[in-house]
């Protein structure tokens, strides 16, 4: 594929998915630094896989790229000891909110970044994008029952992961 074609597809996708990326990545990170990094990794991933994104399945690919980018950003920033650096959580944004609540929310976000692919997508679609199960099942190419199952398993996995973070 010519560079000009690659650029053209990239620009089209960038415009088409800008709102989606802003919304999903912000909700997954909740932190400006992490968000910027995840956004960069996502754009990089889109560019690297641009040949695959020129078709009907572009949305699904971009979803995966964004979630992978989010995981990578979290992995880079949390610290190799697995502990949260308190400064990396935007506590100043909600001065009235209790710190433990903010930390808990950050832990949930971190835990989402470590979910298996399908569970991650299911939980993001259900709660962060607030889609109904019919939409989720269409996007995940599965039945509504399977979509519910992915969400349920993801919630259970989050519970386990949060227990290990404690």
């Amino acid at each position, binding site marked *: 594929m*010519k*560079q*000009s074609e690659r*650029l053209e597809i*990239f*620009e089209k996708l*960038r415009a088409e998915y*800008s709102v989606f*990326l*802003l*919304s999903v*990545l*912000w*909700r997954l990170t*909740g932190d*400006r*630094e992490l*968000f*910027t*990094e995840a*956004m*960069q990794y996502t*754009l*990089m991933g889109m*560019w*690297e896989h641009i040949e695959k994104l020129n078709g009907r399945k572009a949305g699904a690919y971009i979803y995966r790229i964004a979630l992978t980018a989010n995981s*990578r950003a979290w*992995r*880079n920033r949390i*610290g*190799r000891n*697995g502990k949260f*650096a*308190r*400064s*990396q959580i935007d506590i*100043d*944004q909600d001065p009235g909110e209790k710190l433990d609540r903010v930390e*808990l*929310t950050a832990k*949930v*976000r971190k835990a989402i970044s*470590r979910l*298996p692919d399908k569970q991650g997508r299911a*939980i993001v679609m*259900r*709660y*962060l*994008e*607030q889609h109904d199960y019919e939409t989720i099942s269409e996007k995940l190419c599965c039945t509504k029952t399977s979509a519910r199952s992915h969400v349920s398993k993801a*919630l*259970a996995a*989050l*519970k386990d*992961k*949060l*227990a*290990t973070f404690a």
Partner: protein
Amino acid sequence: MGKENIEEILKNIGSEEIPADVHKIAQETSNNFSSSLKQTRQPKRLIVWEYIMKSRITKLAAAAVIIIAVLISMNILDKTIPTASATVVLQNAVNAVSDLWSVHMKARMRTLPSDNFSNIGLNYDFVDIEMWKGTNENGLVQWRVEKPGRVLLMDGQSTIMLIRPNYGVLEERPLPLGCFDSWSGRLLNVQGLLDDELQKAKNIPDRAISLWREKVEERDKIVLEVDITTDVPEDDYLRNKFIQDSDHVKVYRFDAQTELLEGLQVYVHTAGEDVLIFEVTDIEYNIEIDDGVFALELPENMVWHKEPEILPDNEKYGQMEPKEVAQAFFQACADEDWDEFLKFWMASEAEQRIKDYLGGLEIISIGEPFKSSQYSGWFIPYEIKLRSGDIKKYNLAIRNDNPAHRYNVDGGI
């Protein structure tokens, strides 16, 4: 915390307003990326992109490590020549170590004390590894890599691997660092290492590198992170049994002032966590190394590695199927027929240690052979009862890529 609480938090996240400045950050990030793509005049050739990301957070100073400016995030987008500062940083580091005449490195690794130098296990305890490399006044290069049950020594003339207490592999020539799967030994080639990482990042897909600067105890550090995706399938037997057969990330740290390598950590990515698998704990440069380090005192009763030779009845063994080989091998042990044992064992004689361990065993079962994408031989599941009464259940590794073309035991005991 229950599912209900998690759901409540998730719902709250989902209904949060996105702050206005985040819209702006997203727009800037996206536009900057797009501009960078368009600025290249070498359409298919570029291709290291740099992003200078200025930290928007002023409170990153919590820990000893302060990211003073998230400096350079660099990614290879194609298999071509990288540009600008990444190369400069690496080149400076290479220059800084070009006049090294000795390196002494201490490390720890999740491995077994006597097993292959590259062997890892996510649940293994850490084992200490110590490595030396020196160049004497006559330009003679010598090195040594050691863990508790294994020593690998190149004294300038020959290369010896001693598996304690008395099994040895001798090559009457100097072999390069990294031989005999001594993965960690390659770290002693500090100069070549950096160049090697850069070349690999350029030429191998699924390998991303990032560079940034940190401040640790008031000293600037340069961090090079290499993220590697293996092509070994998740369900492959050898997945995560060697570093190169795992998804992993290598984090190198250089002192920004001296530009010398100060540390390396390797993490294996798993579904749940990144597991620290290898860590350099100390590096010394240009120190006097005692001559004794590059000499090895061998026990008198050494048993030497011996490649399989063509036997008078070689055809009989050459025609054996993997399962038959496993059966015959263990039967020889059961019968304590050590001449027969040696037809499957690459050694000049049967070591007493092996005789004591395997002699008189009882075969419980031999399973169906299977392959790994990373190994040219076969693995055969087995279960045996040792004379001690212990039951051993594992996979015997055999291979026949030798001049005699018959299967010999390569591991899994």
